[in-house]
């Protein structure tokens, strides 16, 4: 799935750091070298990455819920199997990403605590509900499509472990995207009820998908530094534009209408113009006021709390086993 810098309230932490070290670091980054866990890095670089990678990991985990909502109701055995495989991939992505973040000196427990306490964010998109089966198609097509758009450049992000995680994630993600689009094709070519479902899903998921790219460039305080440090390779607006340009013909092929009256090809810029995003809604969802934000967090916390005795048992058993082995 996906993450982007969403919080505009984070203040850059300016700590006096050895200018020679900073200069050497920036030179390495500028030369497109990968930074590895044992290398020196500015504290702010480390913190930004921990925030971004863990946010990305949390998005994978919370993202299991809207799709998991439909596994038991998938309309054919093949669709059920594909959805199960996809949700498994997402859990796997979460694992890679938590591991990548741990190389920066944090721990999975700390990251999960931050998620459950509401301190850490996850992608705004998962705070929207999956109402119909078509939503599963739309999520694959649009949400995973947006994720890929963001993650392909991250394969060249400056932090080695994150870049390598992205290489693996992107392969699976593009497969998910194609599967989602295939669901949409079946619905778009189906009965009138199926077409209605497909159009309605596009109507509801289109704008939230555009919001996945984060705030506009002129309101994205971390972008400049993230670009200089090559944590980000392209700006939010550049990626959003690419997404619109690629997705519009896909909607045309389905015979579905993108819910944006202002959407039009602009010959001069060689891309589509599109309407204004409702930024008030975006920031509300970032704040945790999305339609099913409370349900998502409640489900995660409940799973964690209900599972405490299982984790305790596993730890107790492991301790006994080791004591036995030592004796």
């Amino acid at each position, binding site marked *: 799935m996906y993450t982007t810098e969403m919080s505009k309230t984070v203040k850059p932490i300016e700590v006096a750091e050895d200018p020679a070290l900073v200069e050497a670091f920036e030179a390495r980054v500028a030369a497109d070298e990968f930074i590895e866990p044992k290398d020196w890095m500015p504290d702010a670089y480390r913190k930004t990455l921990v925030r971004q990678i863990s946010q990305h990991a949390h998005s994978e985990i919370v993202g299991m819920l809207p799709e998991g909502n439909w596994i038991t109701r998938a309309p054919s055995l093949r669709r059920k199997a594909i959805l199960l495989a996809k949700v498994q991939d997402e859990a796997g992505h979460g694992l890679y990403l938590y591991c990548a973040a741990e190389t920066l000196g944090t721990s999975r427990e700390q990251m999960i605590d931050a998620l459950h306490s509401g301190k850490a964010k996850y992608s705004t998109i998962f705070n929207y509900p999956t109402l119909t089966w078509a939503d599963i198609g739309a999520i694959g097509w649009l949400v995973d499509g947006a994720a890929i758009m963001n993650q392909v450049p991250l394969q060249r992000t400056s932090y080695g472990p994150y870049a390598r995680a992205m290489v693996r994630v992107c392969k699976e993600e593009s497969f998910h995207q194609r599967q989602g689009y295939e669901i949409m094709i079946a619905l778009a070519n189906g009965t009138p009820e199926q077409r209605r479902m497909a159009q309605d899903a596009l109507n509801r998921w289109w704008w939230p998908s555009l919001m996945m790219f984060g705030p506009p460039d002129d309101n994205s305080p971390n972008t400049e530094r993230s670009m200089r440090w090559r944590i980000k390779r392209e700006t939010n607006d550049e990626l959003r534009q690419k997404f619109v340009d690629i997705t519009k013909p896909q909607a045309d092929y389905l015979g579905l209408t993108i819910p944006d009256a202002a959407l039009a090809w602009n010959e001069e810029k060689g891309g589509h113009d599109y309407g204004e995003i409702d930024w008030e809604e975006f920031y509300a969802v970032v704040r945790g006021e999305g339609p099913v934000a409370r349900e998502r967090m409640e489900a995660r916390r409940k799973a964690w709390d209900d599972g405490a005795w299982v984790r305790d*048992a596993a730890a107790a058993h492991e301790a006994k086993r080791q004591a036995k082995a030592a004796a």
Partner: protein
Amino acid sequence: MPSLPTIEKDVERHARNAPDGGAFDAPADVHEAAIADYVQRLGDDSLILGQRLSEWCGHAPVLEVDLSLANIALDLIGQATNFLSIAGDADRLAFHRDVLDWKNCWLVEQPNGDFARTMARQFLFSTWQHMLLQRLAESTHEGIAAVAAKAVKEVAYHRELAADWVVRLGDGTDESARRMADGLEWCWRFVPELFEVDETLAGLIERGVAADPRDFADDYRAAIAATLAEANLGQPADQRPILGGRRGHHSEHLGHLLAIMQYLPRTYPQATW
């Protein structure tokens, strides 16, 4: 007494070459029906359990467990598809049969309960399924043998994973041991059904199509006992067996499960997905 028809040469030759050479046998369509019934039992077990495990998605105690439960569910859905395809259109069978036509055992339709109950169910079922599939890989029915040969590798992993959790929970904390014992106790009355042999099954066993579960009942008991011993758990006291699933007589849980699973294909019968 009416005279017997003349037996032609080619009929004699055909009879000699038939796989069940010499045995009195029912007409082909009876066999077809029995085989269809049997693969539905096998497929329904896998599908219903896969459906139950899918309910865990996103709600497991830890991410690794979420992954392994989804993994097992996916294997089971695959097996169900393969077994049901032997009987006909797998989707038709999965989404357009009502309770009385489902042939899964009671054990797999039990609600998930807590993690211990889910693991008890998995351990008791996968251990049985593994022993069964090992034998079914030798079935005289090629299709069944092929599906079983693929599935047996998957189920070996399910069995091991479930047994590991039984040990971890049984030999973990006091609370986990109590919950594990409760889970086993809950599921125990459904075990005898796994070894029930009715007329349909007996006929198929005779022809080498089906495996006789009674042949591995002792091995099964020994395997379960060994894991329970490792888990420091006692064996639950035997209870009156609950039977009927193979004949479509189920618990109250199955109807609800089907209502969820089948609602889309039933609401839009003209649609393809």
